[in-house]
């Protein structure tokens, strides 16, 4: 493991990206404490003012006079939460499904994989719209909906790894010493998958954030008065000629967040994927 840490440290882009992400998370959590402007307050005296470091609104205000700094922080928080929670959900489903399919093998495996192919054949957006119509537009439901369609690739990766691990001698040795199938999957196979799973999971978070922003942009995701980076961008897109900062502020932040998450994911892959220490 220490080798992985060393390889990770040797990658300055990934280290810097992790620092930026940590800063953004910190800002999203404690930033509101330092901002004098309330998130819901409408400042009629300053409608659509541009950003200034000396004025009352650091990032300016939107069309309704709401403080853009406060809104962007909330958006970041929501986007990150959606990304993390939905990733966790897809991780849990994906690992259990993939490990079971890979361990059982044979016909059960074939059946489970065909089911995944059917699901991945469905148009994703349509599927989420369908779920939203069916179950309403709660933000919690959005977590579930995105997570529930995001696990397919994870399940495939886990299944492939499981197939190769279960042929290894230590699994045979575990069977020979009387360990049952549940114990073998949980204790002897899944922990061995952690490398690729961690890497894929870090790359899933930005994907999901992007997907959530996309849904919110279309008006299907987070609803007013709540904001995510996606809804803020959608709002800004309408004002881009008159008040470009309403688009630029959340847009830049989203781009920065995604870039950093991807850099961290790549760095982790380089550090962990070097097999067989």
């Amino acid at each position, binding site marked *: 493991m220490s080798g992985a840490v060393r390889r990770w440290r040797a990658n300055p882009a990934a280290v810097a990206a992790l620092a930026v992400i940590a800063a953004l998370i910190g800002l999203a959590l404690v930033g509101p404490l330092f901002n004098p402007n309330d998130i819901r307050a409408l400042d009629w005296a300053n409608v659509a003012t541009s950003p200034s470091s000396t004025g009352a609104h650091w990032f300016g205000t939107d069309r309704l006079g709401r403080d853009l700094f406060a809104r962007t922080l909330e958006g970041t928080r929501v986007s990150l939460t959606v990304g993390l929670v939905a990733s966790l959900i897809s991780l849990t489903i994906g690992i259990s499904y993939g490990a079971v399919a890979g361990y059982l093998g*044979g016909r059960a495996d074939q059946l489970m994989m065909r089911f995944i192919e059917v699901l991945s054949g469905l148009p994703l957006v349509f599927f989420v719209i369908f779920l939203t119509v069916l179950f309403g537009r709660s933000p919690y439901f959005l977590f579930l909906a995105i997570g529930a369609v995001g696990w397919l690739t994870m399940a495939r990766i886990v299944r492939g790894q499981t197939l190769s691990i279960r042929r*290894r*001698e*230590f*699994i*045979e*040795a*575990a*069977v*020979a*010493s*009387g*360990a*049952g199938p549940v*114990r073998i999957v949980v*204790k*002897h196979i899944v*922990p*061995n998958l952690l490398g690729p799973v961690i890497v894929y999971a870090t790359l899933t978070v930005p994907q999901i954030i992007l997907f959530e922003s996309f849904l919110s942009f279309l008006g299907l995701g987070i609803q007013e008065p709540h904001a995510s980076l996606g809804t803020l961008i959608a709002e800004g897109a309408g004002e881009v000629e008159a008040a470009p900062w309403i688009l630029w502020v959340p847009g830049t932040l989203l781009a920065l967040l995604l870039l950093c998450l991807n850099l961290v994911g790549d760095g982790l892959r380089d550090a962990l994927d070097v097999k067989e*220490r």
Partner: protein
Amino acid sequence: MTPTLAIDALRVGFDSDGGTIAAVREVSLNVEPAECVGLVGESGSGKTQLCMAAMGLLPRGAQVSGSVRFEGREILAASPRDLNRIRGSKLTMIFQDPMTSLTPHLKIGVQLAEVLVIHAQMSWRDAERAALEALERVRVPEPARRLRQYPHELSGGMRQRVMIGMSLLCDPALLIADEPTTALDVTVQAQIIDVLRTMRAESRMAIVLVSHDLGVVAGLADRILVMYAGRVVESASAALLLRHAEHPYTAALLKCVPSLLGPRLERMASIPGSPPAAAGIEVGCAFAPRCPRAQPRCQTERPLLRKASGPPHQVACHYPLSA
């Protein structure tokens, strides 16, 4: 007394594109309590598949007939649940390659203790204490420190000791050792054989020791079975077999063991030719094409295992060496 392991007319085959491959063609074998039986043969002679059948570990596609009884219970028909209950406690196995037989991400102590938690319903705390004793029994230096180490921190010989210690945790009736020393270098081999001998004296378990190395088997086994192309071709007490081999194949194998005392050879002795393909129909004696004593009869008629000179000596050959 019921034998610890009773194998009767066991056949193991696998389907392949080129027809059915017969790994074990028909083997019967009894192992009495506290007896050590050596199983010798070249690669592909069916030794490992025989062990797998005895453990109930044959892969799903295998075609099996005959019977394997462990302490009177049929293994081939046992449910996975029952198998899991005996495997690792009463019936244990150690594998050829200790480098890959331990789960890489679990500490030695956890892997040892897990066996006791499964089989003896011990608490983790008691199990860890028992694991420590097990490592002491197999002469692992600094056992307390080893428990906290990962497999990759141990040398090959040390790992095989851990595997042996693990297999002895629940006081097994039978230990199947499938080439336990093949992956280790010669000095470590001797140490491992030594550990096995001590364990045997202390615990009175039966051992099936599989090897392609007669020297390894000779030092430990009471009785030796020689396998060729899926069949037992000779069976005798160790001392008898080493002194008076009856089957030409056994004799050839013995000649291949290099000796420090004998004349210096230009080349190591070897048996000309290679073992027959495991697919196809067998006609006559499988060893005939490589046998210096082969007669026309050997090509057409398969020799059966029958009694030879000494009391517990059986050989499958039309023209044994003493004849």
